[in-house]
């Protein structure tokens, strides 16, 4: 018994010792080496708005910055501390490398970070010294391979079917020919040979006046129907889907990334036209985003999207390597999809801001469109229909309260439609 107790005790001591050792050793690691995980958080909060790890942004790339500075310029960590906390002071004091970098990066001053302790900067440096993550496995391509296989197999099946039908047709033709030959040899007259003796079908048809009348009426009605359908689509551009000079995917921007329509089409809030954004609006994000990193399809792959971003840079005159506008900007000839005829007036702000109509009500699921098409017919009937069915939100509109009350009384309703408020007057839209 005693022995057992002693053993227990000794093992307990061992365990305690182990814990103590572990905790001391971990403390020891923390004290000496900086923590890249904490550094990452600090980097993202303080540095990442101007610095990327790889590649230039507003400021230079920071991957392995400490090692590079030490090797190339002979600058130590103390220089980095001083620079981070007060770069402007260093430039003033005439530090050679500080002035060189400042000039190189378009003389954009670095925001001083006096709040960062030495340990914080150590952590950030530890994060920047980490090796870049290995490039992700190219699983997408495999998926694509699968889908292309699918397409290929579909085509194969179709080809096989077509071949089968061709064989069947050839077989029938051959059987027919052989049978006719047999008939000829045996002297049997085929049924088709005595057709002349009977009255032809069309003569019988002409002689039956009732049938002629019914057919004529049917033909007239049918042609009227098709003529009406054909004439009603003249001047209606529903489904119009032009190719734009730069492939702008609304699916990626409004759908995948959920950018509000009014971010780019900001004048839809306040003016008649929903403006086509000028390229500086594109550059708000694309200064930072120079590569596509989302889902790809067979038709639109990463190279395609990346090349379109390069087209944007070319048109905006943006030099991504130097991070400044140095090229000659050129206008992009966007093709307008939605056009109303000149004889009708339409105002975006009245619908978007005053009425609060969703863009999708008229423009359809733009956030799903790779290439935008005209969703609604934009005919007068379509406008009128919406004006008849839509109730107007008349709450908290003090200026018009009296008019709204009287109109409600006149029509005997609680909710006024646009039509009841004069939305069907010709002069509202045609003048």
């Amino acid at each position, binding site marked *: 018994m005693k022995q057992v107790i002693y053993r227990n005790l000794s093992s307990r001591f061992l365990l305690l010792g182990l814990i103590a050792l572990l905790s001391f050793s971990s403390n020891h690691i923390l004290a000496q080496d900086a923590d890249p995980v904490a550094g990452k958080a600090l980097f993202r909060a303080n540095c990442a708005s*101007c610095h990327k790890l790889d590649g230039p942004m507003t400021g230079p790339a920071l991957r392995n910055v400490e090692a590079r500075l030490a090797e190339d310029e002979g600058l130590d960590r103390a220089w980095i501390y001083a620079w981070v906390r007060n770069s402007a002071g260093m430039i003033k004091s005439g530090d050679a490398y500080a002035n060189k970098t400042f000039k190189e990066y378009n003389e954009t*001053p670095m*925001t001083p970070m006096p709040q960062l302790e030495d340990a914080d900067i150590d952590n950030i440096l530890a994060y920047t010294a980490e090796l870049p993550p290995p490039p992700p496995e190219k699983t997408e391509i495999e998926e694509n391979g699968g889908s292309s296989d699918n397409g290929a197999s579909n085509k194969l099946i179709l080809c096989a079917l077509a071949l089968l039908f061709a064989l069947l047709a050839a077989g029938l033709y051959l059987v027919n020919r052989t049978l006719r030959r047999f008939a000829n040899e045996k002297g049997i007259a085929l049924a088709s040979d005595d057709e002349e003796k009977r009255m032809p079908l069309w003569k019988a048809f002409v002689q039956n006046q009732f049938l002629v009348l019914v057919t004529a009426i049917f033909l007239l009605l049918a042609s009227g129907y098709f003529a009406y359908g054909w004439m009603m689509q*003249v001047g209606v551009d529903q489904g119009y889907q032009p190719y734009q000079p730069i492939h702008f995917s609304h699916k990626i921007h409004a759908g995948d990334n959920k950018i509000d329509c009014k971010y780019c089409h900001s004048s839809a809030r306040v003016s008649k036209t929903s403006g086509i954004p000028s390229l500086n609006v594109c550059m708000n994000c694309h200064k930072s985003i120079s590569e596509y990193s989302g889902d790809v399809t067979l038709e639109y792959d990463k190279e395609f999207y990346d090349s379109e971003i390069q087209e944007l840079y070319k048109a905006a005159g943006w030099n991504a390597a130097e991070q400044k506008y140095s090229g000659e900007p050129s206008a992009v000839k966007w093709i*307008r999809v939605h056009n109303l005829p000149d004889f009708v007036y339409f105002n975006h702000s009245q619908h978007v801001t005053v009425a609060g109509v969703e863009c999708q009500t008229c423009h359809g699921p733009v956030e799903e469109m790779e290439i935008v098409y005209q969703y609604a017919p934009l005919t007068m009937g379509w406008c009128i229909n919406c004006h008849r069915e839509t109730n107007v939100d008349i709450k908290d509109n003090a200026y018009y309260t009296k008019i709204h009350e009287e109109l409600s009384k006149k029509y005997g309703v609680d909710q006024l439609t646009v039509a009841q408020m004069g939305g069907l007057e010709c002069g509202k839209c045609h003048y």
Partner: protein
Amino acid sequence: MKNLYKILLVTILIGAFTSCQKDSRPNYQYMPNMYEPVSYETYGEYEVFPGKQEAMLPAEGTIARGESAFDYTDSEADYQAAKASLKSPLDSTQVDYDKAKGLYSIYCAICHGNKGDGNTSFSERDLIIPGGYDTKDITIGSIYHTIYYGRNTMGSYANQLSEEERWQVAAYVEKLKADLQK
């Protein structure tokens, strides 16, 4: 054989008619001179304009109706000056936080996050990482200057927001910063 020719003829005719319809081309119109405007249309292309562009920048020094001149230029010195001394013309009763929040969520939240902490789907994917307002040394003057001219990778929002809207958003950003620092 005759039947075959007839079928072929009908197919060709149908083909000829349907091939005229193309989605990448606008449809034909009854009377184009009633559809096509005589006046210059927004974004139109006309010989009289420089570069044939109807869309032109306003003349240098133009001040939009209802707005006022902004004396600070796009320079570091003026940024610091705005940061130190520029104050909002809106008093506390004129700041409409609901309206400002709506504008903020359209124009700013996509990069800065709904709470201003910089956590967005862009920052998760390491595309745009602006950092939170709580870590930034900003005042309402510097916020306004940044919205007006842009700063570093952020572009100018002067063409998307009017003067009054910019001040509303700047006030809202200040509020977000204060909320984050609580």
